[in-house]
């Protein structure tokens, strides 16, 4: 566990910037897909292929980075690109196999993704027993369920980039599957107790994760832990929109709101890059995050 720190103005600043950046990235990703679908759907599968190649190259390039901050920052982009490509590949599969929209409006690609639940559990089971995995949630499960026979691996982590990319993919995958299981009218349903529970749990856990996030005051860990924090909040955004209570600005292309989000993303990108460059100049070495 990371040593508990006193919450400082600095950590509040880093947390806020990281949250805005991850949220902005997700919103921009969504609006990009919506704009392509709206204006030029013919290019969408080529765009998906491009995202796959770019994601893979970006993840490879992180091997040339020393600082965990830069690695996390760029690793997220790699994971984001690969995630995009998976969504597009499922769209393509949906078209090929004639998967329809659900009657409550769920998209074919997410209906397909729902049934990757067992694959997700298999990957997660592996991660739970993989000694070098340092995820706090997995640590918690290992401790409570007494999963491990011996001590887990310790020591310095050098590959933050691919790890962060994988973290982004796993977290996004997990919550999409969770939401789709909830929305499935033949299992639970958009207005079922399960969806209400996910909504309430996500809302509560978001604040807890924000509190935990405040104990980090470097962009490396802040960005990494902002991924689950924002994704958990995103569950509520998705559920509210499923209930018709929220018109997502990235789906309905509300440019005034999107402009604010894009501006927030641009400013937070500038602040992150500026800070990471400054740290590099000052030759501050990053410490291990456990």
């Amino acid at each position, binding site marked *: 566990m990371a040593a508990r720190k006193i919450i400082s103005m600095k950590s509040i600043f880093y947390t806020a910037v990281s949250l805005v950046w991850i949220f902005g990235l997700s919103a921009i990703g969504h609006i990009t897909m919506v704009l392509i679908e709206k*204006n*030029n759907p*013919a*290019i969408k599968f080529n765009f998906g292929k491009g995202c796959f190649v770019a994601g893979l190259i970006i993840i490879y390039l992180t091997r*040339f*980075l020393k600082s965990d901050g830069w690695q996390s920052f760029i690793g997220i982009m790699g994971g984001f690109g690969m995630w995009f490509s998976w969504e597009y590949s499922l769209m393509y599969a949906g078209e090929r196999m*004639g998967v*329809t929209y659900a009657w*409550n*409006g769920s998209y074919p690609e997410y209906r397909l993704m729902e049934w990757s639940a067992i694959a997700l559990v298999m990957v997660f089971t592996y991660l739970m027993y993989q000694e070098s995995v340092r995820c706090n949630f997995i640590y918690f499960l290992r401790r409570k369920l007494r999963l491990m026979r011996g001590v887990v691996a310790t020591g310095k982590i050098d590959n933050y980039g691919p790890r962060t990319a994988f973290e982004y993919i796993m977290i996004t995958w997990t919550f999409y599957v969770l939401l789709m299981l909830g929305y499935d009218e033949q299992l639970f349903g958009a207005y079922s107790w399960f969806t209400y529970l996910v909504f309430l749990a996500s809302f509560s856990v978001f604040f807890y994760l924000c509190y935990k996030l405040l104990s980090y005051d470097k962009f490396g860990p802040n960005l990494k832990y902002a991924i689950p924090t924002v994704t958990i909040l995103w569950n509520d955004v998705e559920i509210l929109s499923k209930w018709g209570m929220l018109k997502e600005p990235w789906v309905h292309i509300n440019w005034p709101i999107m402009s604010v989000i894009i501006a927030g993303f641009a400013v937070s990108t500038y602040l992150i890059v500026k800070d990471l460059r400054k740290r590099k100049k000052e030759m501050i070495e990053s410490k291990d995050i456990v």
Partner: protein
Amino acid sequence: MRNWKYIFIALVIMLFAQSVQAEEAAAKKLSYDERMKIIENQFFAAAQEGKTIKGVLVEGNSLFNGTTAPQNHYEKPYAKEELRPVKFSAERNSKVFLLTKDGTLYYPTPPKGERISQSMNSPRIPRVLTEAQKKGPKLKPWATLVPLVGMEVEVFGEVYPGYGGIKGIYIESIKFEGDPQFEKQD
């Protein structure tokens, strides 16, 4: 590899340039709004001339095996306990038909000449909105057939003679009330 970050930025730019380039190619033709305007004008002109078709969307499997009989109750084609199962069947890709008040059945098809096509339950169909709908809460400018099963819709498109009394229809645009995907159905 000192300046590798610039390679990364170049990659991202290349990725977006690809879509921007294609965007520009599309922009040389017609913008999305222009296309939607044409679709709307076409629909309302056809509606005035009586060339649109009004009907309810019904689910094929239960209709053809006699489990349901939406043809006997145009105003309310499905009883409350029938609606959920027929919607489940439709989302499992059972075919959806358009049934008009005079009993004509239309089978949604792709446009004539398209040899490789997909299930017509899946593609998005441009949704025509009335002025009142445009002023209300924002609605998606497209719809697919599955969420509309059991509802009355008005469609514009090409009609084909079909076979055995069932006509074919390529639906170019659709108009209906409400936002069915958000309606809670017990």
